[in-house]
Structure formats: structure tokens, C-alpha cells
């Protein structure tokens, strides 16, 4: 047996055997020679050491360096360090184009809220609009143009090369393809036209992943106009939503949520609207509905026809146009209900309800449904006289989306070499287009390809040039999304990097002038001055008009949309009719927080829990419990889904309330080139899509589903407790965490909530609060659980992103969360939502157990958290009945993705008024104490006393439903004290007697309680 000490020895390498022959290493046995040693003696060495230490010590001062203050050389007049400036602009995160107010401190944007003067979003922004600010400071942003093989190039060289390529392509008659998202700007439209004039072979293609193209197609077929009238949601008494998530991901959500919630305002009137949902997915709208039916998406058209039949043929309301008679008469509600196992009596009651409110009932179909359903819905709405709910304004279309045929033809031309230049204007078709189109392969066949984007993406990684773009807050622009409403975008910070805005790049490529910082601003102003301003007939000069318009961010213009033409019903029959499949169906839903994938690199958005499943950092295949049983899968099992287009594996999430044999999947995930945060989060849907899926709805027949045997871990912030566990079932109702009633019950017995008051036993003495005492009320009737409050709080209070792994351990840091509770059966549950934040209890249990008095009460009723005193025992969190305290187990900014959010320039996003917490301290909602203090300071400056209405917390400011009210409970006239005294007001876990200062207003479901026949 041979032993060996190293692999070299084992393999008998040369030198090893030789070495082994000697006892000592070479040189060890040589004679000692003092003359070879260093000339410095030991004593000399020590003397030098001492001397240098003494010198070093003498050079030190004992004072700690306190850094530098670097004032402006020439201070801009409007900037005072320490005081925020607000600029009006327009959000470009999605097609809604909301007006925003950007708060800047010392020239850097730190917070964004809605522009109250904007007539559409009225001072509100969604979660994406709130968190979009992080993208400005994203370390993964491209900082300079790059050419082939990622070599940095100069803009001037790119300009020369591309202009040359464009000229040659134009001369050779080869196509120049420009791929853009839908345009909402008059100036950009003009620019595109100018580009087309200069390069006649240019052709523009428009696409959007989340679009309402089917609805537009239907409307255009019926009326000849692509511009759809705006709906006055607040006037609808009965709304029937067909697979439509109008409170979540579709349409102008800010306006829709506001208008919908305004009809659920118990302070104004108990005359609530009623929402019916017929859907397969468990959408946010479905969660907020009063009645919900489960129906697979491909049966929706038949459902609308059955409704038409019932209403027009059986009930004889309105007349069915002759052209659709044949469709309608072949079905009936009775047959339909039997076929799809829906409760007929309840459906009949729905019809009664629709008819009981003529001119006030509205049917809406979801973006995912095909045009033929939308057309049938428009006809049905006409019969219900829902036209009265259409406003005079319409949306404005500057670019129709390209048909899937047009895209396919383009790809064929790319393959045949007929396309010489392709320019992606902030679009990412390699990721977005259905894989079946084969876009990526075709792109490689185009000699010059350009991708403009803020960060690296799937398309930029295969293009010749990858050009970095400005963030919206660095750009100019104008927007026109609705008749009579124009809004403006202005830069609020100088470009952080060597970037340009895409309009300026195109302008430069027209070849008439060289690039300058103001090139697009001048173009924009000129367009307004010559094309739009004269028609406005303003009594002031253009300069004054322009500055006023930029200051306000939005202008109202006296525009009149053409009246809606009578329907051409024959067109309905011509639309392609969907086929009801027998097997499984895939339904693609819009992502709530990552958009079409463009926000994948935004940690704040990835970590916002899905409003229903509460899953973070992932998408998944949602299945009904029975369907999951049928397939033999449970949550976290991977399944392989096959459609005619392709195959994709993804994790299962068993979602109560879904329709059977339907798989829903959210788009926008599965990016493979999205920087350190977004890469590899979730699964891409592109391989499953048919070529026409994106433009014709989101329903795809599934040809096969099978379990792969692999498991995965989905992470959610709230597990849903077992619905069949006798102890846990409806615990939230038994413990009065959620108190609910119905509108009818409330009408009969307004005091129903407080018949039993819990006995309150106190071991502490009551403290009198003189002066202002802060309190919050949250109206659960209005809250739709959109998460805008959570995102707003994240930005305002410097909440870190912790990452999927830490969320798995329950260490998410959000100060406000929205709890979701299920009641009823797993098949047809009812959902309740409840925003939960620090309740600022008068008898706060956390305060009693803190050993270092780091959490205390203020004289104005705030439960304060003093970070520098906290030693991290976590006793407070353990003693909190509401579980709203968050502990910094790490310095999460350092911990996530190798300190990604510690890199420059992320620090600039922090609110300078709020401490950035480090590892080892507890934190929680402070009721935005920095805003309270600021209001107090202003009140003192103006020599008046502080009023409760002076303060708006970040969550309150963000809430599009205006469900959150904040103010002084000691002021009897304040709105918060009205809520506290309201019959429906209650505190969570009242019996604990912690005396919370957050009051919840019990939700009233507006269920139709008329007895059903049969």
C-alpha cells in the first residue's frame, strides 16, 4: 500500500522524488553569514519603529473628521438646501400617463406623488408610479453607448454610423424598421412623421404587451372610430365585469379605482354600487366584487350572447339587431348555466339587477378577451342604455398597434434581408414577442440594429448598438391621452450619465442638426408654438403660456370629440369568433407591479406582494383547488404546460376561487437580461404564446399539462390558512379582525357592529392628551388593496429591499402591509382586505416591554421608535398583537445581491428627512412623523396652531381610493373623528384594550338579498 502527500507525489512528477531524497529543503543547511544580513540592527529597527509611531501620533488630531460642506458656487435661485422643490411632470411608466409632482431636494428627486391638478389621476399615482423613482438611480442603468461586443463607443460615432446606414438603406430602397410602444404624444407623432419624410423606406411598428386592442378593434368595427369614449364609472349603479380587472391591471386604474370607490363612501351615502364579476382568474376586481361567478374565459362570448338572449328575447328589453340574431337565438341563459355549471337563479337575479337600473348598469369585458366578446358587450350595453354612462370625451389614439400579420411580415422581411436598419425605441421585442414569431433569429439577420433602453435588456444584448436612454425625470415631453387634456414632462435633474432621450436621438438622426442637450426641447416648443398653441386662442404670448403650462404640468383644452356614430352591427359577425375548448385554457394576466417586464429590475416593485396570492419575486401557474387535485399537483410543484406554440415549465400555486381547468399566468416575468435584480425572476410566457396572442387577447388553448416531479419554492408574505381547519376557519371573523356586514343589514340595523362591546379591563391609568392627537381611519369599503400605499411608504420612509430569500424567512420590511383573508369554500371564497400598520396604541404593549425605553409615547399620541436607543431585543415585536414591527436582521442594503442597493447612486433616492436604519434595530410605521414635524414647523412660522388637516401621510397621499384618512382626533370637526365615531368604525382586537389609534370602517358588501326563484 502506498501513501501519498500530494497529487504531484502520487503522479510521480519530476522534482518530487528528487526533493524527497534530501532531508531538508534547499538552502536550509547553508552556513550562517552575518555579512549577508541587513545593515540595520535590531536596536536601530526598534528606534525607527518608535520614531515613526511618534510621528504618526503627532500628525493625528484626536478630533474626528466631520466631512465637508460643499456649497454651490452660484446657487440657483429656487434651491435652498434643506427645502424641497416640487415640479409638475408626467409619468411614463405605463399608458395612463398620469400627471405627477416630483419632490426634489438639492436637485435630486426623492419622492413622487400625483399632480392634484391633473383631471384624470387627480393627485394619485399607482405603486409603479411611486416606485419608478428607484429606476432613476438604478446602478444597472447603461451609462454610455455600446457597440458590437459591448465595446463602449461615443455618441458622435454612433450618430455618424447610423445616419450613414439610414441614408444607404433609404437609397437602396431597403426597409428601416422602427419598433415602438404606443405613442401618446403629439410631438413624438410629428417626429415620427418627419422621420418618415426624411427616410421614405422607414416603417413604424407599434406594440404593447398590456393593451386594450381587442376592445379598440371591436369599437372601430362598430363605429368606425378607434377612439373609445371614457366611462363615467361613478354613475354606474350596477357593474358587471367579465374577466376584467379594472381595479387592478386594466385601463386608467387611478381614475377607475377612484370613481368606483367614490360610490362606496359610507360618509356620503349608503347607496353603494354593486359589482358582479364573472371570471376565471381570481383578480383584484373579483376580490372586491359583491357577487362572483366562475367561468372559463373562452366561454365569455357565449355568456354575453346568453345574456343578450335573456334580456332582449325573453324579457323583451330593447331589440336585438337582426345581424346578431342568429348567434343569440342559438343559446339561452338556461342552457348556458347548465353547460357551465353556473347557478341559474343567481344569474337570473343578475339580469333582474341589470334591468332594474336602466342607464345605470354597465357591462365591461376584460382586455384579455377577444374583440368579438367586446363587440357583443358593446351591443349589450346599448340595450341596457349604458351609453348614458359614456362621457363626451374619448381616449386619443396617435398610433394603432400593428397587427400580428404586420409583425410577421416584418420578421419575414428581416429574414429575407429586406430590412437594413432596425431601431428599437425603448422596446424589448426579443423578450415580449411570442417565441413562435422567431424574432431573435431574424434580428441577427439585420445588418444594423439599434436598441435604446435605460438598462441592458434581451434585445440590446443582441443588437449592434445599445444606446442608453434618459429616465423620464431627465426628459422632455408632452402627452395627450384624453380629449381636452394635455400634460407635459420636464426634466427635474440633469442627466446622471452620458444618456439621451429617444426623441432627441431620432431628431439627431434626421441629420439636419447636431445633438445638443436642448435639441428635443426646442423641437417640442416649436411644435407647440406653430401647431397647437395658435388653435388654443390664448390671450397670452407663447412664452408665458409655455412656462405656465410647464408649471402646472397639465392644461385643459376646449376640444370636442366627435359624437359616437350608430353601430354597424354587421361588423360584429365578421370578427373572428372564439372556440370553446374542452380541455385546459391558459389565461395571461397583466402583471400588477412589473409592467411588461420593464420594472423587473426594481426591487421595491418585485417585493410588493401580489394583491391576492401575496407572492413576491415570482409568477406562477395559478390553478383551482379541484383542478390541482385532478392533476395531482400541489402548490410549489412544477408543471409543464404545452400549447400549440410551445412548452414552458413553471411552479403551481393553488389559488382558491379560480375556475376549473384554467391556468392563469402573469406576464412580464422571466427576464434573462435584466441586471442583477431582475434577471431570472419568474418564468417567461413568450414560449407559450401563439403568434397573434398579444394583439388579440390573452386566452390560449392548452394542449397538454403534466407534472414534472420537480418542486420549486414560491414565497409569499402571507400564507392562507387552511380553509377546512375547524379552528382556523374564519378566524379573522371570529376574532373580529375583519368586521363585515351588508348594505341591507346596515340599513335595517346601523348599530349591528357594536351590539356586543368587549369588556375592557385596564391595568394602566388613562392619559389625557391635550392638543393635537393623531389618528388614522381606513375605510375598508373603499380600499381595493392596490398596494399603492405600500409603495408610497417604501419611498417615503427609506424601506430596504430584502430579497426573496429573506421574505421566505418572514423578514420583509414594509411598514404597511395589506392582509388578505379568505372566507367560505376554497371553490368560491369571499375575500377581505385590510391594510395593517402600526396602530399607535394608547396602551401600547410594545412600550411596556422594551428594556431600554427605545419605544415610547409622544404627547400627540404617536408610538415613537428611537433607533439609536434600540438594542434589538425584539421584545416589542413579540408583544405586538398586530405584528407590525420590523427588525433589521441585516443591513439589508448590504445583504441583497452583493450590496446592490449600496452602490452609487442608490443612496440619492433616500428621503433625507428619515434615518436610514442599520442592522440590529427595530422599526415600524411612524405615522410619517417627519411630515407631522414639517407641518408643525410651518404652522409655527405662520403663527397659527397646527391643524390635523395639515398633515398627509405617504400612504394617504398615495391611496387612489382615498380610503385612508389622517388627522386630529381631538378636533371634533375633523374627518378622522367622524370616522372614529361612526357606527361602522371598529378597532382590530378591541378586547386586548391596547386602544389603537387606527380605526377601520367595516366593509359593507352590497349583496343582492332578494330571494331567488327556484
Amino acid at each position, binding site marked *: 500500500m502506498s501513501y501519498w502527500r500530494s497529487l504531484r507525489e502520487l503522479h510521480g512528477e519530476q522534482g518530487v522524488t528528487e526533493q524527497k531524497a534530501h532531508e531538508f529543503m534547499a538552502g536550509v543547511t547553508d552556513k550562517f553569514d552575518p555579512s549577508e544580513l541587513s545593515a540595520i540592527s535590531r536596536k536601530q529597527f526598534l528606534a525607527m519603529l518608535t520614531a515613526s509611531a511618534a510621528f504618526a501620533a503627532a500628525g493625528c488630531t*484626536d*478630533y*474626528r*473628521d*466631520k*466631512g*465637508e*460642506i*460643499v*456649497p*454651490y*458656487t*452660484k*446657487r440657483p435661485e429656487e434651491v*435652498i*438646501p*434643506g*427645502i424641497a422643490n416640487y415640479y409638475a411632470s408626467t409619468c411614463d411608466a405605463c399608458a395612463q400617463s398620469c400627471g405627477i409632482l416630483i419632490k426634489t431636494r438639492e436637485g435630486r428627486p426623492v419622492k413622487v406623488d400625483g399632480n392634484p391638478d391633473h383631471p384624470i389621476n387627480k393627485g394619485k399615482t399607482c405603486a409603479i408610479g411611486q416606485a419608478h423613482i428607484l429606476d432613476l438611480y438604478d446602478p444597472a442603468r447603461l451609462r454610455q453607448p455600446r457597440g458590437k461586443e459591448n465595446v463602449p463607443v461615443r455618441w458622435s460615432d454612433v450618430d455618424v454610423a447610423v445616419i450613414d446606414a439610414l441614408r444607404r438603406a433609404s437609397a437602396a430602397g431597403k426597409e428601416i424598421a422602427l419598433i415602438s410602444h404606443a405613442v401618446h404624444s403629439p410631438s413624438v407623432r410629428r417626429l415620427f412623421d418627419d422621420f418618415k419624410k426624411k427616410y421614405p423606406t422607414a416603417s413604424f411598428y407599434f406594440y404593447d404587451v398590456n393593451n386594450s386592442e381587442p376592445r379598440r378593434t371591436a369599437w372601430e368595427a362598430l363605429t368606425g372610430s378607434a377612439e373609445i369614449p371614457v366611462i363615467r364609472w361613478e354613475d354606474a349603479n350596477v357593474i358587471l365585469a367579465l374577466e376584467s380587472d379594472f381595479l387592478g391591471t386594466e385601463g386608467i386604474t387611478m381614475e377607475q379605482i377612484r370613481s368606483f370607490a367614490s360610490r362606496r363612501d359610507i360618509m356620503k351615502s349608503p347607496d353603494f354600487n354593486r359589482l358582479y364579476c364573472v371570471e376565471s382568474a381570481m383578480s383584484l376586481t373579483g376580490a372586491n366584487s359583491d357577487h362572483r361567478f366562475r367561468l372559463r374565459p373562452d366561454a365569455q362570448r357565449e355568456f354575453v350572447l346568453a345574456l343578450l338572449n335573456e334580456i332582449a328575447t325573453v324579457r323583451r328589453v330593447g331589440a336585438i339587431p337582426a345581424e346578431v340574431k342568429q348567434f343569440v337565438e342559438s343559446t339561452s341563459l338556461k342552457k348556458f348555466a347548465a353547460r357551465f355549471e353556473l347557478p341559474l337563479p343567481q344569474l337570473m337575479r343578475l339580469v333582474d339587477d341589470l334591468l332594474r337600473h336602466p342607464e345605470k348598469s354597465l357591462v365591461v369585458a376584460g382586455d384579455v378577451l377577444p374583440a368579438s366578446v367586446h363587440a357583443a358587450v358593446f351591443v349589450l350595453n346599448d340595450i341596457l342604455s349604458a351609453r348614458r354612462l359614456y362621457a363626451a370625451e374619448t381616449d386619443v389614439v396617435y398610433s394603432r398597434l400593428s397587427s400580428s400579420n404586420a409583425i410577421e411580415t416584418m420578421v419575414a422581411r428581416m429574414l429575407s434581408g429586406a430590412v437594413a436598419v432596425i431601431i428599437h425605441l425603448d422596446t424589448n421585442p426579443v423578450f415580449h414577442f411570442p417565441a413562435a414569431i422567431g424574432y431573435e433569429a431574424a434580428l441577427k439577420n439585420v445588418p444594423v440594429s439599434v436598441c435604446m433602453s435605460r438598462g441592458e435588456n434581451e434585445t440590446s444584448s443582441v443588437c449592434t448598438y445599445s444606446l442608453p436612454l434618459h429616465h423620464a425625470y431627465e426628459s422632455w415631453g408632452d402627452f395627450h391621452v384624453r380629449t381636452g387634456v394635455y400634460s407635459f414632462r420636464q426634466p427635474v435633474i440633469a442627466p446622471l450619465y452620458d444618456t439621451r432621450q429617444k426623441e432627441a436621438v431620432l431628431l439627431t438622426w434626421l441629420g439636419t442638426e447636431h445633438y445638443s442637450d436642448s435639441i428635443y426641447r426646442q423641437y417640442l416648443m416649436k411644435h407647440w408654438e406653430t401647431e397647437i398653441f395658435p388653435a388654443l386662442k390664448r390671450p397670452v404670448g407663447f412664452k408665458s403660456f409655455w412656462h405656465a403650462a410647464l408649471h402646472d404640468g397639465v392644461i385643459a383644452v376646449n376640444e370636442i370629440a366627435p359624437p359616437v356614430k350608430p353601430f354597424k352591427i354587421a361588423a360584429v359577425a365578421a370578427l373572428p369568433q372564439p372556440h370553446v375548448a374542452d380541455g385546459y385554457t391558459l389565461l395571461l394576466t397583466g402583471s400588477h407591479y412589473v409592467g411588461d417586464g420593464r420594472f423587473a429590475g426594481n426591487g421595491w416593485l418585485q417585493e410588493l406582494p401580489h394583491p391576492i396570492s401575496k407572492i413576491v419575486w415570482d409568477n406562477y401557474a395559478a390553478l383551482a383547488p379541484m383542478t390541482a387535485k385532478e392533476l395531482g399537483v400541489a402548490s410549489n410543484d412544477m408543471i409543464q404546460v404545452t400549447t400549440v406554440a410551445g412548452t414552458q415549465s413553471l411552479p403551481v400555486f393553488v389559488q382558491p376561487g379560480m375556475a376549473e381547468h384554467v391556468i392563469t399566468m402573469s406576464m412580464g416575468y422571466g427576464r434573462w437580461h435584466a441586471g442583477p435584480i431582475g434577471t431570472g425572476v419568474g418564468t417567461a410566457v413568450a414560449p407559450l404564446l401563439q403568434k397573434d396572442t398579444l394583439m388579440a387577447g390573452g386566452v390560449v388553448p392548452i394542449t397538454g399539462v403534466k407534472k414534472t416531479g420537480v418542486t420549486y419554492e414560491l414565497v409569499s408574505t402571507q400564507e392562507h390558512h387552511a380553509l377546512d381547519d375547524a379552528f382556523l376557519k374564519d378566524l379573522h371573523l371570529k376574532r373580529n379582525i375583519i368586521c363585515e356586514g351588508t348594505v341591507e343589514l346596515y340599513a335595517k340595523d346601523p348599530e349591528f357592529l357594536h351590539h356586543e362591546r368587549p369588556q375592557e379591563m385596564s391595568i394602566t391609568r388613562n392619559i389625557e392628551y391635550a392638543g393635537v392627537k393623531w389618528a388614522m381611519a381606513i375605510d375598508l369599503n373603499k380600499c381595493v388593496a392596490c398596494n399603492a400605499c405600500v409603495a408610497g411608504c417604501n419611498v417615503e420612509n427609506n424601506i430596504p429591499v430584502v430579497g426573496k430569500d429573506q421574505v421566505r424567512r418572514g423578514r420583509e420590511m414594509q411598514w404597511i402591509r395589506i392582509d388578505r383573508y379568505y372566507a367560505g369554500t376554497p371553490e368560491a371564497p369571499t375575500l377581505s382586505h385590510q391594510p395593517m400598520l402600526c396602530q399607535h396604541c394608547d396602551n401600547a404593549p410594545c412600550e411596556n416591554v422594551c428594556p431600554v425605553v427605545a419605544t*415610547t*409615547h*409622544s*404627547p400627540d399620541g*404617536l408610538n*415613537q421608535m*428611537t*433607533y*439609536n*436607543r434600540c438594542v434589538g431585543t425584539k421584545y416589542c415585536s413579540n408583544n405586538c398583537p398586530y405584528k407590525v414591527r420590523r427588525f433589521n436582521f441585516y443591513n439589508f442594503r448590504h445583504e441583497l445581491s452583493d450590496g446592490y442597493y449600496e452602490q452609487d447612486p442608490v443612496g440619492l433616492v433616500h428621503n433625507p*428627512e*428619515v*434615518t*436610514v436604519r442599520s442592522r440590529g434595530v427595530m422599526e415600524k410605521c*411612524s405615522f410619517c*412623523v*417627519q411630515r407631522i*414635524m414639517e407641518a408643525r*414647523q410651518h404652522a*409655527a*412660522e405662520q403663527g397659527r396652531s397646527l391643524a390635523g388637516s395639515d398633515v398627509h401621510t405617504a400612504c394617504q397621499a398615495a391611496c387612489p381610493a382615498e380610503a385612508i384618512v389622517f388627522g386630529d382626533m381631538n378636533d371634533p370637526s375633523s374627518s378622522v373623528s367622524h370616522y372614529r365615531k361612526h357606527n361602522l368604525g371598529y378597532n382590530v382586537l378591541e378586547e386586548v384594550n391596547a386602544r389603537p389609534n387606527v380605526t377601520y370602517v367595516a366593509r359593507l358588501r352590497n349583496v343582492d338579498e332578494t330571494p331567488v326563484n327556484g
Partner: protein
Amino acid sequence: MKKSLLDYTLKIRLPIFLFVAVLSFILTYFFSRAERDGVGYAPQQPIAFSHKLHAGTMGIDCKYCHTGVTVSRHATIPAVSVCMNCHSVVRKAKPEIIKLTKAFESGVALPWKRVHKVPEYVYFNHSVHVNKGVPCAQCHGKVEAMDVVSQVSELTMASCINCHRNAPQVLAGIPGIKNGPDNCAACHR
């Protein structure tokens, strides 16, 4: 009984060692107190600006340069353009003014060393205090007598609280002054 080495070590060497260690700690702690609080900190500034000359001899009001002090949390160091209000005419040939003019013309910002600083987790607002009539010298000392600005007060929590709790005594010169808030969130948030 013979005394062992251990006895000697425990009874004599150890107490002496402990006494010396504790004494030196106490002395160091006591004498370095000022330095730890930053009292006496007078760093060299990029331009040898004399407050004694400007604020003392010439009597320029603090607020002429520190414009933020009545409106903002920061007193603000003046922009170079404020200096140039006078120095575009006055004493242009002096070496320090040449430095200043250069900075103004080139637009390169001047990195002033910070003298007064409260920790990051403390919120202090100048305007609130100044508008109540608290004199600058209450915290900053007699700046008008300093050629090089140095820190005079400790700026510790104790010094803040001392005023907030005993304002009528400490700030007897201000009629009707009330105590400041002494809840945590007044400064920590």
C-alpha cells in the same frame, strides 16, 4: 507560612495593575471628553476666512451669508457668489481672494470643512430655533471673535435637553420662551 509567588501576585501586583488601569481609563476619559465631543475642533478651511473680521470688526449680520438659517433646517454655507457680492470689487488682489475668484470663475466648488455636526440619527432644524429667538451664540459661541471657527458647545443630547427642559432659565433673555419638546421623535425619526 511562606508567602508564595501567587500570594504576591494576587495581593500586590494585581491591585496595583488594576488601580493603574482604572485610573488611566478615568483620566483619559475625563481629559479626552472635549475632543470626543468635538469641542475645540478648528479645522483648516480651504480659504482662510475670518469670522472675526467679517462678523466682528465689520459687523456683518450672520444671516447675510447664512441665508438658510431662518427658513431651512440647514443654516447653509454661502455660495461663492455671495462672497463675490463684495469681493468682485473689494480686496481683489489678496491671495485668499484670488483663490475665491478662481473658484467662482471656474465653477469648482469649495470644500469647506464641517465644524458642527450632530449624528445622522438626530434631526436638528436651525429655522425653528432661530425664529424663536435663540441666539446663534447659544450653540456656536462667540463666532465673531474667532479667526478660525472652532466648536464651542458639546452638541450632545445632554446639552440639547438642558435647554429644552429649562428654556426659561437658560434663555432668560427671550421673553415668554417655553420649553422645547422632549419626546423622542422631536429629534429622532
